């Protein structure tokens, strides 16, 4: 029975010591320790969240990078295409212009040749006429110098004329 009869002295001392412990530990141990642990937990939590946000940001950046790259590629293709078209157009234009010019040059050459030819023909005609006149003059002169020859000739011509 002694065993289960609480002694008053021990009750008083236990109460006293336990209350002091509750007070001292609460004030100087649990409070700083729990606060520190809590602060650390918060810090870790925050760091994790930040890392997550950074990762998301990085992903977003990567996506936008890809978008940019794609856009750049498309733009390049468009530029190349445009350049090619422009080049083709320029070549065609140049060809057209060149052929037109050639035709024009040809035409003018032809005209000139024709003119030259006509001039030459006229010149030739004139010279032939002159030559003929000169020849005729010479012949006439010779015939007139020898009256019997001229007389014979005229007679023959008259004969011819008569034959006609």
């Amino acid at each position, binding site marked *: 029975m002694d065993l289960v009869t609480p002694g008053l002295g*021990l009750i008083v001392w236990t109460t006293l010591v336990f209350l002091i412990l509750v007070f001292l530990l609460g004030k100087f141990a649990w409070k700083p320790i729990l606060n520190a642990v809590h602060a650390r937990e918060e810090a870790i939590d925050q760091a994790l969240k930040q890392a997550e946000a950074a990762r998301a940001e990085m992903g977003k950046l990567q996506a936008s990078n890809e978008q940019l790259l794609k856009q750049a590629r498309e733009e390049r293709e468009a530029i190349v295409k445009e350049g090619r078209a422009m080049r083709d157009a320029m070549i065609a234009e140049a060809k057209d212009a060149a052929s037109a010019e050639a035709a024009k040059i040809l035409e003018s050459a032809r005209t000139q040749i024709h003119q030259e030819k006509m001039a030459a023909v006229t010149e030739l005609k004139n010279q032939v006429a002159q030559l003929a006149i000169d020849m005729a003059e010479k012949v006439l002169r010779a015939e007139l110098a020898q009256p019997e020859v001229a007389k014979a000739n005229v007679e023959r011509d008259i004969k011819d004329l008569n034959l006609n």
Partner: protein
Amino acid sequence: MIMHHIADSHGWHILDWNGHAVSIPLPVILWTSNGLVVFSSAEFHHDIEGHHVVEAGGLQFVNKHEKIYYAGTEDKPIDLSITKNVFALLVGAVVILLIFFSAARYYAKNTNAAPRGLAGFVEPLILFVRDDIARGAIPEKHLNRFVPYLLTLFFFIWVNNLLGLVPFFPGGANLTGNIAVTLVLAAFTLIITNVNGTKDYWMHIVWMPGVPTALKPILALIELIGVLTKPFSLMIRLFANITAGHILVLSLVSLIFIFESVWISPGSIILTLFISTLELLVAALQAYVFTMLTAMSFGAAVEEHHHDDHAHAEGHH
């Protein structure tokens, strides 16, 4: 011998040497009809049969089975002596303060650092009490209010349980196996629970909602008894477990002397070792159980019941 160990004493008996008891004298503090009287327990000269009379403060005292009487009478002064258990209590308190103050110093020095050394050892335990014992039982809103008390309670019981298992001075006192100590701890649980009891808590005790009116007074009676039996069971559980452990270990050691044979000692030692190891587990387990049930009691006191929960709550009671 076992009963002497299990009970409290005014001196700390360490060993017998050449037929003389060697013990550490502890102060005897008495509140008598003449006021406060203090003398050393050594003045009883190890007499606990009430033969040796000590004169102090103009009064005469005898020690009968570790109870101080006025000599020649059956009257007792109020005994506030630093007995073996009180001394062990103080040692335990100093150990606890040393451990946790130095741990707290680490946290003051190292903000946001990983816990190392002593802090690394106690932090998992502190977090265990906070997260596994308190958080499961007490609503988050009230958690911070009770955690410091629960921590003190847990480490007080655990450290003193462990010191009780140390077989030599200054350990080995059966402190947490003393009913006075467990009574005080259980009383604190009872007081804190009921001081913090919300209106809801009291309603569930005296006028249980959701139950036929005829049953309400009967339930109120049961619940009111329950208010007392819960801490009472706490008191008995801790006392019985620790005392049983001490009795077991001592009995096994005593086998050697009962059989008066050295040859029995190997078996005795192996069994003692086994039980002592088991007691290490029990020391932690009982601290856990006591703290856990206290936390649940606090949780029940501050819990806010929603009316949807009543069907569930009834099923639970």
